[in-house]
């Protein structure tokens, strides 16, 4: 096979492999993340004081939070939430870093949680009792020795262990599922942050309003906000929304890559068949001669296939290397959403190249084998 | 008398006597054309009569006087003229041409045989000539060129006779 054809074939197959790896990667990602887009939880919202981007949270005062909560119609459950990440707490003689979360007693309703023991009660919240609940991983570390936690100067009695998924497909990338201590928000303000209720520590207000749409809630807010001086910009997000926007943006980009890769894949496929056929046509005198000398159709098919498979293998190696680079780049930019590229995928790439090589060699190989030696040799040089 | 012009050519190079002339001629023909003295002297006489050559006696000490011939100016002119090609080609240059004319007058089966016979003859001619060519080592000699010419003519004739056979076959 002429060196030019050989190189074109190798490049063609490499392109095909890269395109396929992208198609598989993107396809996988789209498929996995697709289920997350759908999850708009109806009737569950976050109200927060924020900027235009879904991730910009300014925080509101407890006062304002309570005011907003008073606007909510009857039958609506809500909880103000304030978080301190990576706060040093003491358990027994040991120090530990965890999230300290100030909430209302209603907090449990918002997630499907199991509690061993109990969460703090309305009464305990009203009387500003120093009680808390912890997530299961903290409990597992300390076991039944865990009775009291000291945060700063204050000592809290542990009354319950909470287990369950608390990751919210919501406004902020806040996850309380692990490494968290929950206590009444007023106590959070006074005993842990030593702030008064005007400090803007409230990150958000969680709302469960099954009868209301997002629009309804927004109207309620704006109706009431207009009567306030210096009305802050309050945003309402449905659970699943913010994450969704960002996700959608990424997924659209990936879909674009998918389509491009698909087109490249098709072109690569055509290219391979073209090159293989051209390479055979170019040499049809040679094949005619070989047939004349006694090469059976099977012999020629084998020869052509072997040539093409040789190129396919090289193309496979090249393709895998390039796909690896492309994947690393994509990982860098899209990171958390990207599907893995590893030894298995690499091996699959080489195998794919060989399969593609074999399939595309079938037609040209057959054509070569069918060359009539009489006709081929008759032509003048 | 066909040899006379070649004699003139030989004498144009240098004067010779009869014996030398005969040898020179036979050497060029490489033995394919032996001459006898009768022919030689007949030709020389003719040439002398026509004024193309002249002779003189050379006195030899121990041997009888020999007659040496040399070319004249007229001779040279005549030779030059003869060496130039004229615009003349004999359509009936050999016996086969005449036989060709007789062929249609013969019945079909016989004419087919005759054609094949001629083909076989030509093949033998070619075989013979080729052998002679192989034996001639000097590829620059006149004889070699002569043989080549004959072979090519014979090959041409072979192509022709094959066509004749083809035509006869189609007709039959």
């Amino acid at each position: 096979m002429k060196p030019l054809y050989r190189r074109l074939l190798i490049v063609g197959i490499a392109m095909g492999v890269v395109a396929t790896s992208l198609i598989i990667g993107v396809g996988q990602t789209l498929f996995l993340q697709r289920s997350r887009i759908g999850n708009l939880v109806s009737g569950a919202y976050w109200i927060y004081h924020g900027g235009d981007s879904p991730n910009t949270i300014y925080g509101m005062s407890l006062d304002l939070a309570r005011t907003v909560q008073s606007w909510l119609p009857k039958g609506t459950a809500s909880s103000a939430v304030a978080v301190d990440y990576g706060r040093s707490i003491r358990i027994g003689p040991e120090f530990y870093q965890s999230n300290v979360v100030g909430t209302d007693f209603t907090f449990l309703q918002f997630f499907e949680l199991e509690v061993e023991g109990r969460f703090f009660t309305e009464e305990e919240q009203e009387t500003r009792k120093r009680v808390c609940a912890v997530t299961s991983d903290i409990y597992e570390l300390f076991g039944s020795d865990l009775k009291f936690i000291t945060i700063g100067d204050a000592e809290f009695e542990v009354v319950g262990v909470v287990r369950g998924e608390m990751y919210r497909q919501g406004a902020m990338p806040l996850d309380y599922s692990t490494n968290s201590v929950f206590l009444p928000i007023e106590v959070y303000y006074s005993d842990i942050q030593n702030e008064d209720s005007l400090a803007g520590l409230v990150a958000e207000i969680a709302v469960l309003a099954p009868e209301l749409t997002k629009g309804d809630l927004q109207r309620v807010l704006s109706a009431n906000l207009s009567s306030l001086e210096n009305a802050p910009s309050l945003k309402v997000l449905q659970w699943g929304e913010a994450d969704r926007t960002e996700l959608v943006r990424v997924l659209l980009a990936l879909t674009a890559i998918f389509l491009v890769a698909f087109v490249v894949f098709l072109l690569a496929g055509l290219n391979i068949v073209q090159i293989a056929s051209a390479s055979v046509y170019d040499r049809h005198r040679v094949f005619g001669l070989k047939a004349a000398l006694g090469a059976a159709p099977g012999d020629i098919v084998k020869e052509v296939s072997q040539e093409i498979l040789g190129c396919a293998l090289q193309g496979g190696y090249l393709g895998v290397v390039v796909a690896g680079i492309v994947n690393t780049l994509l990982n860098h930019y899209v990171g958390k959403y990207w599907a893995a590229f590893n030894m298995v995928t690499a091996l699959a790439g080489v195998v794919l190249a060989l399969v593609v090589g074999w399939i595309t060699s079938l037609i040209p190989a057959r054509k070569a084998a069918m060359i009539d030696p009489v006709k081929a040799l008759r032509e003048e040089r | 008398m066909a040899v006379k012009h070649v004699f003139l050519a030989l004498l144009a190079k240098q004067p010779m006597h009869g014996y030398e002339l005969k040898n020179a001629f036979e050497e060029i023909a490489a033995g394919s054309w032996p001459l006898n003295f009768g022919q030689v002297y007949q030709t020389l006489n003719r040439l002398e009569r026509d004024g193309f050559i002249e002779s003189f006696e050379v006195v030899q000490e121990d041997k009888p006087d020999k007659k040496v011939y040399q070319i004249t100016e007229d001779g040279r002119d005549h030779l030059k003229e003869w060496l130039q090609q004229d615009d003349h080609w004999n359509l009936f240059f050999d016996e086969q041409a005449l036989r060709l004319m007789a062929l249609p007058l013969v019945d079909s089966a016989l004419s087919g045989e005759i054609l094949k016979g001629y083909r076989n003859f030509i093949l033998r001619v070619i075989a013979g000539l080729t052998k002679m060519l192989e034996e001639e080592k000097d590829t620059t000699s006149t004889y070699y060129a002569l043989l080549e010419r004959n072979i090519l003519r014979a090959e041409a004739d072979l192509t022709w006779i094959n066509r004749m056979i083809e035509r006869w076959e189609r007709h039959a």
Partner: protein
Amino acid sequence: MLELNGISKVYGQGASQVEALRDVDLNISPGEFVAVMGTSGCGKTTLLNIIGCLDTATSGIYTLQGKDVSRLSLKDKARVRNKTFGFVFQAFNLLAEYTVLENVTLPLRYSGVPKRRWKEQGLGVLERLGIADLSSRYPDQLSGGQQQRVAIARALVNDPEIIIADEPTGNLDTGTGREIVSVLCDLVEKQKKIVILATHDGAVASRAQRLLQMVDGRIIDDSTVPTGAVSFSHPAE
């Protein structure tokens, strides 16, 4: 060894049909040197192709070494070609990208001979033709005569019984052509092979023993090549 009975070959269909061979009967035995003559288009090449199993007759029976090979599959034809025939073409048809040795051993690739024997067999046949020293050269480095010798070596490498040559001296000068024909003569005399040769050249044809003349797809003459001296004369006689 080979026998053709009523062999015909027709190309094309309907109005544009061409009868390349018509009802040909032919019998050739080992040790025969057969020359085929005829004007262009008479069917010489088609006859050679059919004998050599490169092409299939449209009707008639072709018996080769006792077996009917008239209508074999492509695969079987290839096997027969490989084992029984050696081909020499006018255009040499050597592969430019292979060395002389690789060219010569090409038929061995398809013959089931194990690879380790190829070099030895190839050099053997090159030696018999006196060109073993050319084994690692490439065809474009050789003269016409040398190339044709390589082609003959290739035709002989599997020791076939029948050599088919289509105008083998067409691209060679007279002297070299003669040498090549001598090689072929040798094969017939010494090894009792069959050589079937198509030619325009009278000098080549005259060295065969048997002459076939073809016109319009038929053999119209099948006779011994005439021998016997011709007397060469000159005008004075």
